[in-house]
C-alpha cells in the first residue's frame, strides 16, 4: 500500500474532537481504515481529548451515582455493536455501511459524459457522493466555494496538482481550480465530500448543477 496524499492535521483533529460534518467524517473514517499513519494521528488526538478532560470538572447532582447504579443491572435498550474487522473488497467498512454492500451495491445515476454518481445519505452540513469516472474521462473544470475532499477507491486520477491513487485524498479549497482526469486503463471510483456547492467554469455544467446536486 503506497498512500501518498494524506488528511490534513486539522481534519484528523476535527475527527477526533467530533466536530466535523458527517460527510467529512466518512472520508476520514474511510482513509483511516487504509492508512496507519493517519490512524495513529487520530488516536493521539483522542489521547489529547482524554487529557483535556482533566480540566473540565463540573459537580454532579447529589443522587447522580445512585441513579446511575440503579441502571447498571437493567439490560438497557442500547445495542452494543462490536467493532467490525476489515472484509475483503474495494470499499472500506465505514463506506460499506452507507452503501449497503461493496461496489455491486452502489446505485449509480448517470450525470453525462459517462460519469456516474451516487449520493450518500448524510446530514446536510456537507454532502458525500461516490463518483464513477470512466478510464480516460474528465470531471468538468471547476473551482470550490468551500472545502472538497476526494478520496480514490479504485483506479487513479490526475489534475493540475498531482496524481492520486487508491487511498489518496485530495483536499481542495477556494484557491484550487482543477480538472481531474481518470487515468487510462481502469475506471476511477472516488468518494467526494464538500461543504459547499462546486463552481463550474463553463456554462454547461452550471446549467446541469441543480440537477447534479453538487
Amino acid at each position, binding site marked *: 500500500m503506497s498512500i501518498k496524499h494524506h488528511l490534513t492535521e486539522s481534519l484528523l483533529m476535527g475527527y477526533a474532537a467530533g466536530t466535523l460534518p*458527517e460527510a467529512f467524517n466518512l472520508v476520514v473514517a474511510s482513509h483511516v*481504515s487504509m492508512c496507519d499513519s493517519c490512524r495513529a494521528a487520530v488516536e493521539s488526538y483522542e489521547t489529547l481529548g482524554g487529557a*483535556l*478532560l482533566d480540566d473540565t470538572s463540573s459537580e454532579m447532582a447529589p443522587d447522580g451515582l445512585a441513579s446511575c447504579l440503579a441502571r447498571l443491572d437493567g439490560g438497557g435498550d442500547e445495542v452494543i455493536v462490536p467493532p467490525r474487522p476489515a472484509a475483503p473488497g474495494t470499499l472500506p467498512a465505514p463506506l460499506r455501511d452507507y452503501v449497503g454492500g461493496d461496489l455491486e451495491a452502489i446505485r449509480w445515476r448517470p450525470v453525462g459524459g459517462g460519469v456516474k454518481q451516487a449520493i450518500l445519505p448524510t446530514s446536510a452540513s456537507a454532502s458525500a457522493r461516490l463518483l464513477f469516472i470512466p478510464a480516460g474521462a474528465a470531471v468538468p473544470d471547476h473551482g470550490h466555494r468551500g472545502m472538497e475532499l476526494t478520496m480514490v477507491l479504485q483506479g487513479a486520477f490526475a489534475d493540475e496538482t498531482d496524481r492520486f491513487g487508491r487511498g489518496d485524498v485530495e483536499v481542495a479549497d477556494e484557491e484550487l481550480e482543477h480538472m481531474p482526469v481518470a487515468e487510462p486503463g481502469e475506471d476511477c471510483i472516488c468518494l467526494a465530500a464538500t461543504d459547499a456547492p462546486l463552481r463550474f467554469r463553463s456554462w454547461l455544467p452550471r446549467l446541469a448543477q441543480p440537477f447534479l446536486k453538487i
Partner: protein
Amino acid sequence: TGAAPDRGAWIVEMELIRDRRDKEAFGRLFAHFAPRVKGFLMKSGTEAGVAEDCAQDVMVTVWRKAHLFDARRASVATWIFTIARNRRIDIARRERRPEPEDLGWGPEPDASQEDSIALQQDTDQLGEALRTLPEKQRALIERAYFGDLSHREIADLTGLPLGTIKSRIRLALEKLRHAMDQST
C-alpha cells in the same frame, strides 16, 4: 524488585468492572470521570441538566462496554473521552458517526502489560506537556475540542506535543499489521 510497575490510573478499576462487575470500582471511576464528562459537555454548549443526564449515560455505557476496553490501545481517560464525544454528536446533531475498520486486536496477553504501561507513560507526559503549554495555545486547543472552532479554524494548531505518542501508536499498529499478515 518489589512493587509492581504502575499500570496507570483506572486500569485496575476497569478490570474489576469487566471481570467481576464490581460496583465499588465503578463508584470510584464515577467519582473521577462523571464530573469531567459533565463539564466537557457543558463547555461544549450543553445545558447543565442535559449534561448531567448524558454524563450518567456515558458512565452506564462504560459499564456495559467494559469488555471492549483495551489498555494496549488507549488510556481509560482517552476511552471515556471517545464515548463522551460520540454521545455529544448524538445529542447535538442526531447523526451517526462513521468509525474506521477495526484492526481486530486479538488477545495477546504477554505483550499487553508492557504496551499498556508504555502507552500510559506517554499519555501522562502528554497531559503534563498540555499543562505547561502557553495559555493562549491551550485555550485554542480546548475551543477546538469543545466545538467552538470550525475545521478550517483548527488549521493553525500546529506544534502540539503529540510526537512520542503518535510514533508509539504507529509502531503498535505496524506490529499488529505484521502479526495479521503472518497469521493469514
